[in-house]
């Protein structure tokens, strides 16, 4: 996106009427945004690429923020389709996020009351993530840490803006989670534990976060530590019931988290029967709790009941495909098929064909290992 195009747009657009409804619908925010959002919800990322290409070639994008929004959807779509090199090329067309080209005050005719950066934050996040996906881990991690500093800088700046502060705090957690995930993937557990400690000390006494801490402790083998973390989560649930308030987690979600934590403790102690019982309680409460469904199936297998473990997974794909269809569940099901059937390629092919009809564009079909 070059200066000439942007300045042209500024000259051409009408002055915005501050009293007109700029926030009536999604389409007020960007050209045909509702359609883009709908395609993304359905996982139709290839269609998004088409739509972006068409909008650009037909010059349908009239404002600088339209271009940026479409760019963001485009980079995200390419990343979803695992076309990371193309995503990088697309991102490179924005050479400097902090350039004045991407600031509202550069275009007072279009944004008379606004100032600040119009870069969608997800672009900054993708800018850090994509090098990692391309195998350049050090570069990506460096960018992530720089991004974290950037967010913390914004938090200091925006002291007076309540809504903004909320957003930037969310972004801080988002970036930290991205960093933790990367270290976790590389089994750098010491760093992960330190970062989580940091998150907790910043006032994020989040039962889900504490549960995830317990999971990591369990993964390492620190079972005592894991139990301690899970006990704290249970305590938080009791406090909530006694009158606390957590708008972010519904009652059902909270209870299920506690049950799933309990199930893990049983599983690690090899009491698979009790683990299954906990997972069944979760599924009864929330039939779309796919973590409970998946893990219950695994417990059945450790109980020597391969047939039922296969049934649980197949049943979930039939009943709630949009949550159950995830790569991990499919990997597990295919492992079970390989064990249960000498001629497993037939049944895997049936599964694979069904997936091809139903799955979103970004589904990684290599999970069937055909």
């Amino acid at each position, binding site marked *: 996106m070059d200066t000439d195009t942007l300045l042209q747009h500024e000259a051409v657009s009408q002055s915005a009427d*501050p009293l007109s409804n*700029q*926030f009536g619908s999604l389409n007020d925010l960007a050209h045909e945004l509702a359609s883009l*959002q709908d395609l*993304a*919800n359905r*996982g139709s990322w290839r269609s998004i690429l088409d739509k972006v290409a068409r909008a650009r070639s037909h010059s349908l994008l009239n404002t600088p*923020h339209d271009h940026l929004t479409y760019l*963001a959807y485009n980079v*995200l779509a390419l990343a*979803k389709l695992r076309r990371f090199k193309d995503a990088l090329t697309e991102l490179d067309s924005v050479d400097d996020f902090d350039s004045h080209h991407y600031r509202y005050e550069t275009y007072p005719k279009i944004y008379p*009351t*606004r*100032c*600040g*950066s*119009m*870069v*969608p934050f*997800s672009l900054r*996040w993708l800018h850090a993530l994509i090098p990692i996906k391309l195998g350049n881990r050090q570069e990506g991690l460096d960018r992530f840490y720089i991004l974290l500093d950037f967010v913390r800088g914004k938090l200091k700046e*925006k002291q007076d803006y*309540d*809504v*903004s502060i909320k*957003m930037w705090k969310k*972004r801080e957690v*988002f970036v930290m*989670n991205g960093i933790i995930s990367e270290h976790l993937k590389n089994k750098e557990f010491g760093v992960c*534990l330190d970062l989580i400690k940091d998150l907790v000390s910043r006032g*994020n006494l989040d039962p*889900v976060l504490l549960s995830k801490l317990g*999971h990591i*402790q369990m*993964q*390492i*083998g620190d*079972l005592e530590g894991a139990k*301690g*973390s899970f006990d*704290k989560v249970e305590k938080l649930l009791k406090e909530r019931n006694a009158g606390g308030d957590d708008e*972010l987690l*519904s009652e059902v979600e909270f209870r299920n988290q506690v049950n799933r934590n309990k199930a893990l403790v049983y*599983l690690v102690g090899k009491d698979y029967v009790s683990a299954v019982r906990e997972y069944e309680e979760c599924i009864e409460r929330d*039939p*779309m709790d796919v*973590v409970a469904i*998946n*893990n219950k199936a*695994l417990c059945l297998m450790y109980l*020597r009941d*391969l*047939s039922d473990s296969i049934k649980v997974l197949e049943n979930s794909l039939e009943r709630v495909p*949009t*949550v159950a269809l995830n790569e991990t569940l499919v*990997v597990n099901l295919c492992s079970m098929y390989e*064990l*249960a*059937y000498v001629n497993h390629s037939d049944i895997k092919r049936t599964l694979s064909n069904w997936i091809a009809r139903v799955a979103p564009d*970004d589904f990684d079909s290599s999970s069937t290992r055909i």
Partner: protein
Amino acid sequence: MSTTQGTHSLAFRVMRLCRPSFHVEAPLRVDPSDLIVGEDIFDDPIAASRLPPLIDAHVTKLTDTSDLTYRTRFLLQHPSDSFGLTGLLVLPQAFGAIYLGETFCSYISINNSSNFEVRDVTIKAEIQTERQRILLLDTSKSPVESIRAGGRYDFIVEHDVKELGAHTLVCTAVYNDGDGDRKYLPQFFKFIVANPLSVRTKETTYLEACIENHTKINLYMDQVEFEPAQHCSANIVKADEHKSEKDSLSREIFKPPVLIRSGGGIHNYLYQLRSSSNGSAQSNILGKLQITWRTNLGEPGRLQTQQILGTPVTHKEIELCVMEVPSVINLDKPFSVHLNLKNHTERELGPFEVWLSQNDSLDEKAVMINGLQTMELPQLKAFGATDFHLEMNFFFCLLAISHSSSMEMKKSSIRPFSIPAENMLQSFAFD
């Protein structure tokens, strides 16, 4: 009973059942506000009030199964959704490495892929190593009556791995096939057991054990205990916590685990050893280390080292140290030396006599030292010590050389009492 290579109705399918792991993946999910609008838009007060409700209307949680969208793959609903660990467990995807001290666990399924029922199935599973054959399962006392066409018979076996090297899981089935023929099906699954750790020790009165991790995964040290031999006692020496925990909340949450990095990481343990006998038994066996570790989701492993030997040391019963000597000493002016006497045994020793010894050497010296002839010190209790001072004096010793053979320099010859070299001395300056 035919053991022909002809087609079998039955086949064994085997899968190693070590513990599952959590799936870890940074999800490609975003907050809609980070995608559809500029990052600073919320600074605009109109946007700040109108935008959030608009966006919320499009981030409804999935509550209805008829909502056929994959929005949970795209949008974040809870802040922790961007944390790449959902709790989804994955089955072990490969056999992996197996190490001494671990437990080998396997799911074994015997499948009838033929169109006919098979009957009277006797199944056996054994582990064969260089040294022995260990029976894990044997249904010969009560054979499986039948396995229908397309059916299966499953079992899970476990074996504590106590040998290194090549292992073979031998599965055999003897059955009557559809034609009534008695068939014998053997199947072999090989794996190698490697050594997970090496333990190096160094000791004097302290034993330092260095544990090195040779596996491909991080090992969580659950318990490392030193079991001393009968004549020893040991206690572990730990560093003080030097990091000041500024946040008591996070301090409560967990204590840092001892995790040894894969592929060559090390961790050291230090034990203080004490001899509890009267010292006459010169056994140099110190004891053994018992190590319990955990890996993936608490998968345990156990090993014990062989007896750790110490270098035989004649332990000193008493030790005499020079604590302080004045940095400037003048000839012919008396000076005081501060000494310490320590009792290293468990019993009372003494009383003692301390005296200054001259150099045993027969060489004449120009400067000699004299002082208190002997000093008496009272008994020292077990492991006790006492400080005392000796007055000494340097003086010139003139040798009178005379032709008379009747003159002789008198030398005092006193039996020496050893003073450890490391406690000596600073330089002297003479006037």
